[in-house]
C-alpha cells in the first residue's frame, strides 16, 4: 500500500518537474517548486512508515517549514526587484 502511494508521489514529482522546466513564467516555476516541496514531505513521511521507522517524521516537519520559507523568500525577492522579464508579462499562455 505504501508502495502505491510512493509511486504516485514520484510520478507527481516528475510531472511537477516538467512544469518547473517549461515555465513559462517565473510564477509557474515557484508554484512547481512549492508543489514538489509538499510532495517531498509526504514522500519522506510515507517512506518512514514503509521502512518501519516512523520517528523520522522530524525531517518531514523541517521540510514543511523550509519549503514554506523559501517560497516566501522567492516571492519577496521578486517583488523587490519589481522588474519583470518579458516572458512573465505575457498572458501566461504557452
Amino acid at each position, binding site marked *: 500500500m505504501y508502495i502505491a502511494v510512493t509511486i504516485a508521489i514520484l510520478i507527481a514529482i516528475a510531472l511537477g518537474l516538467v512544469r518547473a522546466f517549461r515555465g513559462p513564467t517565473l510564477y509557474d516555476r515557484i508554484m512547481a517548486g512549492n508543489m514538489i516541496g509538499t510532495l517531498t514531505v509526504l514522500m519522506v513521511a510515507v517512506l518512514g512508515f514503509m521502512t518501519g521507522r516512523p520517528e523520522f517524521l522530524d525531517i518531514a516537519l523541517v521540510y514543511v517549514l*523550509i519549503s514554506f520559507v523559501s517560497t516566501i*523568500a522567492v516571492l519577496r525577492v521578486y517583488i523587490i526587484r519589481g522588474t519583470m522579464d518579458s516572458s512573465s508579462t505575457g498572458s501566461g499562455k504557452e
Partner: protein
Amino acid sequence: MEHLVDIVLLGLLMITGFAIVRMRSLLAAAMLTSIYSLLSASLFVVLDAVDVALTEAAIGAGISTILLLATVALTTDEEKAPRHTPLLPLVVVIATGAALIYGTLDMPHYGDPAAPIHQYVAPTYLHDTPGVIGVPNVVTSVLASYRGYDTLGEVTVIFTAGVGVMVLLGYRLRRCNITGPGIRNLIVLRVIAKLFFPLILLFALYVLLHGDYGPGGGFQAGVVFATGFILYALAFGLGNAQRLIPRKLLRIMVAVGMLIYAAVGIESMLLGGKFLEYRVLADDPVTGQRLGIMLIELGVGIAVASVVLIIYYAFVSRHCQAPEDM
C-alpha cells in the same frame, strides 16, 4: 522497493541538473537548485542518512537558496551567452567523466556489507556507542564525542565564514526597513508568520534537545532557529527583525557559541582528562559524556544560528545601499 525509489530519485536529479545547465534566467536556476537540493535530501532519507537529510534540507534548500536569491536580486537575472564555444570544456568534462567511471568499476557494489569501508572503525562505533556514550543516535555520538576535534574545527570554519561575509559586505549598523510593496499588503502572510514564528523556535529547541535520540543536533537546530527569524524578517521587514535580535547581540553570540565549545574542552582538561574528554565531567562516565555532548551541541547551535543570521542580514541590508535596485 528502496532500489526503485533510489533509481527514480537519481534520475530526477540528473534531469534537474541538465535543466539547470540550460536555464538562462538565474532566478529560475536558483529555484531549480532548491528543487535539486530537496530531491537529494529525500535521496539521503532513502539511503538511511537521516541526519544528513535534515541538514541538507535546512541548509541546501533553505539558507543557500535564500542567499542565492538575495545575490540575484542584488546583481542581475539574465545570463549572457558565453563567448567561447563550449567545445573544449565539453571535451574536458567527458574525458574526466570517462576516467572517473572507469575508476568506479573497481569499487565494491552498492549496499555490499563486505565492502572495506564497513570493516574498520564503523563497527566499533556502532557497538560501543550505547555502552560508552549512552546516546542512541550513533551519528551524534561520533560527531560530538569521538570526532569532537573535527566538529570544533568545523565551527571555526563557520565562524570564519561569518567574519568573512561581515568584512566583505559591510559591518556598520544601518537603520534599514525595507518591506516590498507587495508583501506589506499580505495580511494573511503576516498573521501566519506571527503564528508560526514561536512554533519554529520551539521546534528548533526540540531538534537541539532531541538530537541524541533521533535525527537532529546543534547544526540543524541552529539553522531552523535562524530560519524562524528569516521568516519574521520576510514578513515584517528587516528593520523589525533587527530590533528583535540586533546585530551587536549576534556578534557576541557567535563568540559565545564557540567559547562554550572550547570551554567544555578546557574544563575537561582541568578535571584531569584530555581536551574534549567528556567522561570526567561527571562522576559517572556515561553521564559525563551525555552532559558534554549536550553542552557542545548547545554551543554549535548558538554559533550556527548567529552566523546564518549575520550572513542573511549582511546580504539583505545591501539593498539599502543600492536604492536603484529596489
